[in-house]
């Protein structure tokens, strides 16, 4: 810690900020969000990533609001509120799945985008319940078995990491289950899946519900973390940061989402350091509004990645052979 006092160079600053990285709430939120996205198997939705994220934010908001309103105004137990929040988001997921059943391609995108705006509009205008733009103040810290988890005692970070681990575990379990394989089949080639006797509608609904559930779960963390939420909390900017992270890491993999978050988050901090550094340069080397270049660099990352490595840093087709269940493998080998 004393290192900090003596050294103020850019380098140390960067090291410190990376150390602090995990204290940045949005990053953890996004890790969870990205993980939830991974579960978000939707048929032929590969082109519509952006909107997929927009809609996840909507579910995220539903989860967050439910949990926050229950704990703050009804004094509901934290765990109960979390489960209710995630379930409500899941229910909305199922509802959306039902309503988009007839649509395909771009139209699903657009309906989900409209859904995002309708949800944020409801949060804004139904202020007798959601407190609208005034926002929910003084959200209590989660209370687990008599232990208050606050930012100060670090409890909240443990909680978030616990959630992250739980989500990773749950997604892995689901992916490797029968349901997971069916959902994947529907996602990859709906027609072929139908031919093979998979009930595509059923699995679409399951996929939406699961995705919404996990996004909602991630959302329930947000409120206690920030201590304050309002209608402006869940906006399009979150979508963009989530998008950049997922693209950079690699689309459709858990690893990718985590790596993306790890790389992108210090990038913001490093650029912050860079602007401080640039301000120290002689006058003629100054660039106007150095802070703003961060966004330009985000844009460039997107464009360059798509051009030269669209699968992301870690993304790419799995080269591993398909793993059969134990019994099957033995029979085939013989």
């Amino acid at each position: 810690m004393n290192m900090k006092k003596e050294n103020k160079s850019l380098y140390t600053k960067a090291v410190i900020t990376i150390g602090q990285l995990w204290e940045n709430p949005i990053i953890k939120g996004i890790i969870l969000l990205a993980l939830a996205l991974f579960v978000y198997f939707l048929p032929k939705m590969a082109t519509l990533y952006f909107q997929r994220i927009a809609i996840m934010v909507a579910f995220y908001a539903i989860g967050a609001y439910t949990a926050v309103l229950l704990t703050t105004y009804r004094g509901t137990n934290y765990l109960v509120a979390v489960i209710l929040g995630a379930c409500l988001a899941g229910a909305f997921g199922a509802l959306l799945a039902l309503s988009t059943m007839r649509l395909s391609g771009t139209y699903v995108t657009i309906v989900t985008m409209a859904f995002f705006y309708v949800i944020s509009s409801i949060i804004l205008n139904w202020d007798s319940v959601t407190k609208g733009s005034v926002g929910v103040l003084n959200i209590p810290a989660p209370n687990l078995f008599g232990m208050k988890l606050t930012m100060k005692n670090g409890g909240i970070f443990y909680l978030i990491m616990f959630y992250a681990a739980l989500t990773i575990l749950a997604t892995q379990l689901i992916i490797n289950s029968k349901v997971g394989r069916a959902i994947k089949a529907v996602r990859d080639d709906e027609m072929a899946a139908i031919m093979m006797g998979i009930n595509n509608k059923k699995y679409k609904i399951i996929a939406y519900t699961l995705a919404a559930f996990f996004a909602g779960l991630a959302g329930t963390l947000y409120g206690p973390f920030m201590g304050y939420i309002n209608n402006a909390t869940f906006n399009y900017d979150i979508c963009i940061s989530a998008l950049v992270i997922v693209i950079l890491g690699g689309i459709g993999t858990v690893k990718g989402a985590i790596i993306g978050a790890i790389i992108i988050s210090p990038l913001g901090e490093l650029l912050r350091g860079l602007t401080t550094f640039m301000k120290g340069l002689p006058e003629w080397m100054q660039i106007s509004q150095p802070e703003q270049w961060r966004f330009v660099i985000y844009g460039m990352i997107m464009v360059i990645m798509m051009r030269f490595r669209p699968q992301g840093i870690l993304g790419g087709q799995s080269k591993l052979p398909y793993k059969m269940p134990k019994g099957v493998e033995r029979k085939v080998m013989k």
Partner: protein
Amino acid sequence: MKKKLCMLLALLLVVTTLGACGNGAAPASTASASASGGNPTDKTPIKVAVAGPLTGNYSEYGIGFDAACKIMVDKWNKDGGINGRPIELLSYDEKSSTEEGLAIAQLLCGEDNFYGVVGHFSASMAVGTLYTEERVPLISASSSSAGFTGQGDCCFRLNATISTETMGMLECAKTAGKTKLGVVYLNNDWGRNAYDNLKTLLQEKGNEDWEIVDAEEIAGGDMDYNAVISNLNAAGAETAIMFCYYDSVVPFTIKARTVMPDLNIVCGVNCYNDTFLKVGGKDVEGCMAPSVFAAVSDDPDVKYFVDEYKARTTQVPSSLTAQAYDAMGVLLTAIAENNGELDKEAILKSIQNNDYKGVTGSCSFSENRDATRNFSPMVVSNGQWIYY
């Protein structure tokens, strides 16, 4: 194989959390550092911070805060700092995002020799609790949210509360004498609360002559104001009370001039700025606003600030910027008052009991840590804000 990898990653997450919590323990060392602050030969800089949006949609506010605080800190450093120690101003970009603001607050709480923050714009409602936990004084130059100072006893507000500002705006409207009010309010906490406030104000005081003929909630930003203006026109409004930011007031005013040329427009404190005048041009002539700060004032302190600000940014400081300047003044004075004894509780006490007189007038705080502000009605005339 895949499963194992994921477990490994999960483990990694947990381990990094432990690291993060290690950082979280930083405040403990801060306490020991402040104890050594009493040494008069110590030349370690005293750190204060300004946080505001330097990028994003509200960047003009943050840039203003930044420049104003720099002027104040430079002024102090020129006079030899505090107790011989230089003052270092840490400046952070909140990026118009609440998350970013909270991240900055966490970063700041880990700093050593650090004694206070001026600002926060987008995140003011999220950071108060954290600063209070860490006993860091936070003086906001812009927050108008009702709950801001309720976050904890380290949160001070130099901006007017919603009710004071609403009262100031009503006074403006009364000065102009047009009795049929059309309210245009932003659909955020400020707009909605202010509108409610205005309604109660009119009821309480028994102002029978003054009536609200129409109230329009707007989404702000780049919306088309024609529909709103049509409604106001149909309701026969004579004065428009605008509870919205200047980036809505200007487009509204420009549009309104075509359809309702005689409409008297009263706007909030935030409209007292240069961009408002520059963009509004002849259309904003006659717009009124209450203000605690008048750049046209003859006061030497104001003159110094205005000249210095103009020299650095080529603009005339806005009312909120002037408040940021004073907020930094209050903070530094409070630190200096405790002459060498850099104890945060003492500094907090000094801020609470200050009798600082700044460019925006007296900066004393009420029990609720809200500053008592005295408005004077201002009006735009010949491209300048002058006393009405």
